[in-house]
């Protein structure tokens, strides 16, 4: 009997498709799939979370017993912030049950945010850089708008739903690099959701400022302040636009100017100075 090994033709056990082509095809499909899942879950999770009564939100926060800021020693600044908040709130379309409480922290953090239960926290680091009341009113109105739109609870609900989905999908892609990248991309997808919230809060906030002061002069000072604080960014604008939770400062300034023009609000007017003791009030908490 004759035995022989014939040379087998090449390509039987390998795929003819170019590896880069395969990579691009799969990467494109994975990103598309991920974006769809994250957006659907962000919206549906957010939509469901908004069904939670505001009172429940407040009760949860109360039960958790979170201490926002330094309440005891900052009576004056709290009075001022809360009365300004109420002035703005009465000029914003809202459901009666929704209310806000402003808290103050003497921490140097340059930030202010709204969280569930209508709680707003303002840090000294931001407040001490605010040039006038109009800019402060813009931040306050922006954060109040988040509460009125139920953004904190929607963000939480949508965030939890999409985080679970991303974890499942990235787990499927293996514990290696692909899984990690998928997870990262999913988080980026979710950011479009928060950017949309920010844009809407900007618009609602601007409307409240216009209603209270009769003009929107000084409102853009806030974003200028944020931009200065952030400093020169090394990340190119087109990339930052996609990878940031907030719209770009320059985009926001342009966008509120356009919105003011469309709505017929004057961007010229006298800005209201901050009350005389403002700086001392800030000190009191520390």
């Amino acid at each position, binding site marked *: *009997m004759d*035995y*022989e*090994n*014939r*040379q087998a033709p*090449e390509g039987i*056990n*390998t*795929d003819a*498709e170019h*590896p*880069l082509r*395969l*990579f691009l095809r*799969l*990467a494109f*499909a*994975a990103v598309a*799939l991920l974006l769809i899942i994250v957006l659907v879950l962000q919206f549906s999770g957010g939509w469901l979370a908004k069904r939670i009564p505001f009172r429940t939100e407040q009760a949860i926060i109360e039960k958790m017993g979170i201490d926002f800021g330094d309440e005891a020693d900052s009576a004056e600044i709290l009075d001022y912030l809360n009365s300004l908040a109420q002035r703005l709130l009465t000029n914003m379309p809202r459901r009666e049950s929704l209310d806000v409480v402003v808290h103050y922290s003497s921490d140097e953090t340059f930030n202010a945010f709204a969280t569930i239960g209508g709680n707003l926290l303002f840090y000294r680091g931001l407040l001490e850089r605010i040039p006038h009341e109009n800019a402060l009113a813009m931040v306050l109105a922006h954060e109040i708008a988040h509460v009125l739109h139920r953004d904190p609870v929607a963000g939480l609900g949508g965030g939890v739903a999409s985080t679970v989905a991303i974890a499942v*999908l990235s787990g*499927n*892609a*293996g*514990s*290696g*690099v*692909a*899984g990690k*990248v*998928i997870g990262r991309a999913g988080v980026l997808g979710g950011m479009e959701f928060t950017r949309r919230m920010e844009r809407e809060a900007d618009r609602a906030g601007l409307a409240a400022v216009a209603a209270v002061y009769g003009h929107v002069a000084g409102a853009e000072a806030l974003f200028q302040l944020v931009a200065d604080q952030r400093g020169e960014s*090394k*990340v190119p604008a087109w*990339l930052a636009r996609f990878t940031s939770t907030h719209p770009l400062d320059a985009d926001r300034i342009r966008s509120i100017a356009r919105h003011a023009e469309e709505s017929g609000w004057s961007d010229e007017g006298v800005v209201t100075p901050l009350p005389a003791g403002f700086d001392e009030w800030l000190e009191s908490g520390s």
Partner: protein
Amino acid sequence: MYEAAFFLLLLLLGYGFGRLAERRHFARLVVREREMNTLPAIASRYPPTDRAYAQHLVGGNVVVSSDYFKSFVAGLVNIFGGRVAPYESLIDRARREAVLRMKDEAHGLQATYVFNVKFETTRIAVGRTGAMEVLAYGTAMIPSTGDS
């Protein structure tokens, strides 16, 4: 930002070097296989009975690991299913290389055939990507000296 750049760099390096190594290896495999085809490796359990042979166990094993690019693409395939093409070429190379190493050993023993050839694979955990061992072994048939 830096992380993304680093990731792309690794992906690019993985692709570039992985592809280059694969091409060169396939070219070498073809040449060596042609040379070694004079020493057939046969899967049959029934050796020729035309003459007396000394029998000797021979084997060749290869451990292969994936590169960054292949692992990444394989991870993506895991989502949608289908052929894990990046690993197919890798395993093909490993299997053919293992056979050649087995034949090299048999050739050194002046064997004329290798019978009862079998393959085994084992997964070896190396870091997160892992590696695969492919073992080819068989019985080298060495014509007995003194037998005409």
